[in-house]
């Protein structure tokens, strides 16, 4: 019922790449949904995480949200939101359900980014007479970037693999190939769609990992005499 040559033939057939439910469109849609959810989560979580790290109060929120969110199945949350807000707002429900899993790692990343800056740096910024806002803008935010990107990487991995659930509420993305393929017992399509998702997940997380490493050099720059 499934074989590697079948899979290769499936990929080779241009019919499976073009059109509304072709791989190209679904791929772009998958990436667009992922980015929109990450953006929504970042707008909420990053300022909040920076503020918690800056003031040092509200740390329970970072830890609590992290452990609670792991125990909430996204599929159930998504279905509940769609029923609650109506099918017409299902795009929004999807983004909220996805943002819910992206917020805890982003929050933790921003918070840890600020709190792991050596005390001396934050204190000297204060001693220079910088206001609270200036310290966040010119000291804490730039130095926390690497950790925030690290949080973004974890959030990306989880969101990009959860977008697969979108077709269960009638939306698109590469999960469409999986859900439709399962229903039609077209397992080449199922495996092909899964492979594409795995590839974009790995590429995206490598990209963010590389970005994280590059921005990490700001806090811990290589010694000038050290050969790279």
């Amino acid at each position, binding site marked *: 019922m499934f074989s590697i040559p079948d899979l290769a033939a499936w990929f080779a057939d241009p019919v499976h790449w073009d059109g509304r439910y072709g791989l190209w469109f679904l791929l772009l849609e998958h990436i667009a949904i992922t980015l929109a959810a990450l953006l929504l989560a970042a707008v909420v979580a990053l300022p909040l995480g920076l503020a918690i790290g800056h003031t040092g109060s509200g740390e329970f929120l970072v830890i609590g949200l992290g452990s609670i969110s792991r*125990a909430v*199945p996204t*599929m159930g949350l998504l279905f*509940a939101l769609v029923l609650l807000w109506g099918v017409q707002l299902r795009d929004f429900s999807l983004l909220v359900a996805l943002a819910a899993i992206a917020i805890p790692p982003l929050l933790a990343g921003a918070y840890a980014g600020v709190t792991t800056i050596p005390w001396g740096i934050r204190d000297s910024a204060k001693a220079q007479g910088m206001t609270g806002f200036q310290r966040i803008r010119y000291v804490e935010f730039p130095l926390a970037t690497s950790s925030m990107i690290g949080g973004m990487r974890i959030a990306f991995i989880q969101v990009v693999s959860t977008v697969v659930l979108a077709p269960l*509420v009638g939306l698109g993305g590469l999960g469409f190939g*999986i859900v439709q393929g399962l229903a039609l017992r077209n397992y080449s399509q199922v*495996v092909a769609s899964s492979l594409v998702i795995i590839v974009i*997940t790995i590429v995206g997380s490598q990209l963010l990992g590389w970005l994280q490493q590059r921005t990490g050099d700001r806090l811990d720059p290589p010694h000038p005499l050290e050969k790279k």
Partner: protein
Amino acid sequence: MEWFFANASFVAGLALTHLSIVIVPLVLGSILAIVGARLVRARWVPGTTTVLSAVYAIPSLALFVALPALIGTPFIGPTNVMIALTVYAMASMYFSARDAFSQVPPSTKTTATALGMSPLQLFVHVELPMAIPGLISGLRVVSASTVSMAAIGAVVGVRNLGYLFLDGFQRRIPEEIGTGLVAVFVIAMAFDLGLWLLGRALTPWRTRGGQRV
């Protein structure tokens, strides 16, 4: 609530299936990860890290349906879900286990070796007990995510608590979805509490007389 009381035995049955699908992967995955974290040679650590973080990046639904193609298991049924959950539990637990073992002070290990302990004795009597706090906190993370991830198995025909989400959505019964969410959450929290108690019981020297040593 009414829906829950009217269907309590049905929900209980689904919860039992859910538990049975979660427990085997949790136990198996954790043991493999803990032993693996200790056995992998320093030379292979970067490679293992790359492979396991790539494995962890695979979408669960995708792995549930890709497994039959890879290893020839039947497409529908609990086997794939259990294998996939084992793989995820192992990939995630491996990193916590490695951190936990690296926190055992080298001087303690040297002392144990100097006392004449064999590598196996060193592992069982020194490294494992001292790594317990780290291992337990890793297990708490893994158990919560495994319990909630198992629900997705309902999409590939496993009748566990995730079935409440699918059925509740198709038949427009919000209470059914709510029941599922609460049930999964309760099971996850029960695991969390159990592991916390286990951690306390296994490390009596940390809490004896109210003093943390």
